[in-house]
């Protein structure tokens, strides 16, 4: 290996020191930015949000500029991007905090025993009304949706993992499950409506239609999560069972499913939490009623989200003798129902995660 080596070019001297901003530079700039914008705000009479926005902006401009002057362009870019990334993450916390706080603040005064146990039958103006009928509706519709989607989703995942390997049908199913996750919820509702209208005539509205629509949204989520869990079950386990002469279906039922049970339950609960807050499809197909209806297959049925929507769109009027600033009775009820709905969803999420964590050691260790 003899290659003619040209004379190496003259080397630069060893420069490992680059001019650097001191470690406290970001802090200093931050403090200055807050002070500066605060001062400006005092002079111009702005609100707290403007002060904050201005301070962030000031920081985003000042720190890179200082860095540019001292450290050069590359470091300045680096500092700018670092600041931007931090800012983005900080700002992301704002909406959630804001939303949850608002819902709690407006909703909490509404939620009491009567609110939870009254329905809206013959409620006029600011009389005590409640969400009892909506809670019943939500539970029934969601349970029915789960009853439809869990078996289908479970078996579909079993098909994909245990029977479908390499088959064309399985590839199609996988692809279409992906597509299904992208179906807008209102389209699912319209589909259910179209189906039942075709069967029973244009005036039909029923809770079960909502369940059908929700299943359409729920099945792909169940399939995805179950599939993932089943794939985590190591093949040796299956082989061990086959070697004992256990037929494949019993192996699946007795070995594979129990091993991944925790993950599957978590997936189902998360899917339920996702659809329990769906409004649009139920609005379309389950309709709206003010009274309790426990029959999924007859008459209209209100769920919590739909209740919120209608209280919002038809809030009634503020009583003339109410103190100024009072919200319309419907709006107040909407906040109360929103709080209950959020509580249900968050509880489902939390329990799902807990279940996942409790069962995790058995299933998640194998294969990354």
């Amino acid at each position, binding site marked *: *290996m003899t*290659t*003619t*080596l*040209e004379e*190496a*070019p003259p*080397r*630069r001297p*060893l*420069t*490992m*020191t*680059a001019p*650097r901003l001191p*470690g406290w530079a970001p802090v200093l700039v931050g403090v200055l930015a807050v002070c500066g914008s605060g001062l400006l705000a005092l002079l111009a009479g702005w609100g707290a949000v403007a002060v904050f926005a201005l301070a962030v902006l000031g920081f985003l401009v000042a720190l890179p500029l200082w860095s540019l002057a001292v450290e050069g362009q*590359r*470091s300045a870019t680096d500092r700018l991007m670092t600041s931007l990334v931090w800012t983005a993450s900080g700002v992301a916390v704002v909406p959630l905090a804001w939303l949850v706080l608002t819902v709690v603040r407006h909703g909490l005064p509404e939620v009491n025993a009567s609110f939870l146990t009254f329905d809206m039958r013959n409620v006029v103006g600011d009389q005590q009304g409640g969400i009892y009928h909506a809670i019943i509706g939500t539970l029934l519709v969601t349970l029915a949706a789960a009853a439809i989607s869990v078996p289908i989703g479970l078996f579909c995942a079993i098909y994909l993992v245990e029977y479908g390997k390499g088959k064309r049908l399985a590839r199609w199913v996988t692809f279409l499950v992906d597509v299904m996750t992208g179906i807008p919820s209102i389209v699912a509702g319209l589909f259910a409506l179209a189906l039942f209208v075709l069967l029973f005539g244009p005036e039909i509205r029923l809770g079960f239609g909502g369940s059908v629509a929700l299943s359409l949204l729920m099945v792909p989520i169940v399939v995805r999560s179950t599939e993932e869990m089943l794939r985590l079950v190591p093949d040796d386990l299956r082989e061990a069972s086959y070697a004992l002469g256990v037929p494949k279906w019993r192996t699946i039922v007795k070995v594979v499913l129990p091993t991944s049970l925790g993950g599957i339950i978590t997936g189902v609960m998360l899917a339920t939490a996702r659809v329990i807050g769906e409004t649009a499809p139920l609005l379309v197909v389950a309709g709206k009623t003010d009274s309790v209806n426990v029959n999924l297959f007859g008459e209209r049925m209100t769920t919590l989200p739909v209740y919120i929507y209608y209280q919002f769109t038809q809030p009634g009027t503020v009583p003339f003798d109410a103190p100024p600033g009072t919200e319309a009775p419907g709006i107040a009820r909407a906040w109360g129902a929103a709080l209950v709905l959020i509580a249900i969803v968050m509880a489902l999420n939390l329990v799902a995660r807990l279940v996942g964590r409790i069962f995790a050691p058995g299933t998640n260790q194998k294969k990354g």
Partner: protein
Amino acid sequence: MARSIDVSDLDIYYGDFLAVQGVNLTVRARSVTAFIGPSGCGKSTMLRSLNRMHEVIPGARVEGKVMVDGQSLYDPSIDPVAVRRQIGMVFQRPNPFPTMSIYDNVLAGNRLNSRRMKKAEADDVVERSLRRANLWAEVKDRLGRPGMGLSGGQQQRLCIARAIAVEPQVLLMDEPCSALDPISTSAIEDLIHELKADYTIVIVTHNMQQAARVSDDTGFFNLKAAGQPGHLVEFNATRKMFSNPDNAATEAYISGRFG
């Protein structure tokens, strides 16, 4: 212009875990220094601390002193980014940037540093680096092809070309031949010999013969016991290490490997 490195009383931690303890050694300029030792004794850790690559790992930190030509490497005034430009590194597995052509791979480091580089100048850097890495003849007709399309040995030489294109002063190599066949290995060993004229080279290897063939000085690292930190057992001229080491453990390790 190559640089010498003085390490004194160096401890390296991953969080609370002391990985390497009490290292003292001197890497001479324009020489090849090899680190050998059993797996897990901290050779890579040691190597990474020489260009502050350990800082990339969350929680990793060092105590002690590393002087590069009289400058303290861990001094607060030192910019780790500038350090890594001066002290290049080649990794165990070849890792050309997968989305870049051969040409762009070689220039990746330079592009970071100077935004504008004339085409002729860039061509010049690419050719010179590839020639020094003994790769020019093999790739000069397909510089626009992806770097991933090369063989493993060629990829590794491409990575070396990429490292020397920014004209570092020191080259650190962490088991550069462990993923390569004997022919590619020997090509890289030849290359190390040639690079020695201009660079200070530190190489980690599990291959005793390789250490004996390419290096001038050798450091033997070992674990005192399982769970204990790694430490430098012996640091000597390679010839002496392989013929008549001072330390019995060194002899056992080397001769054990030679079988």
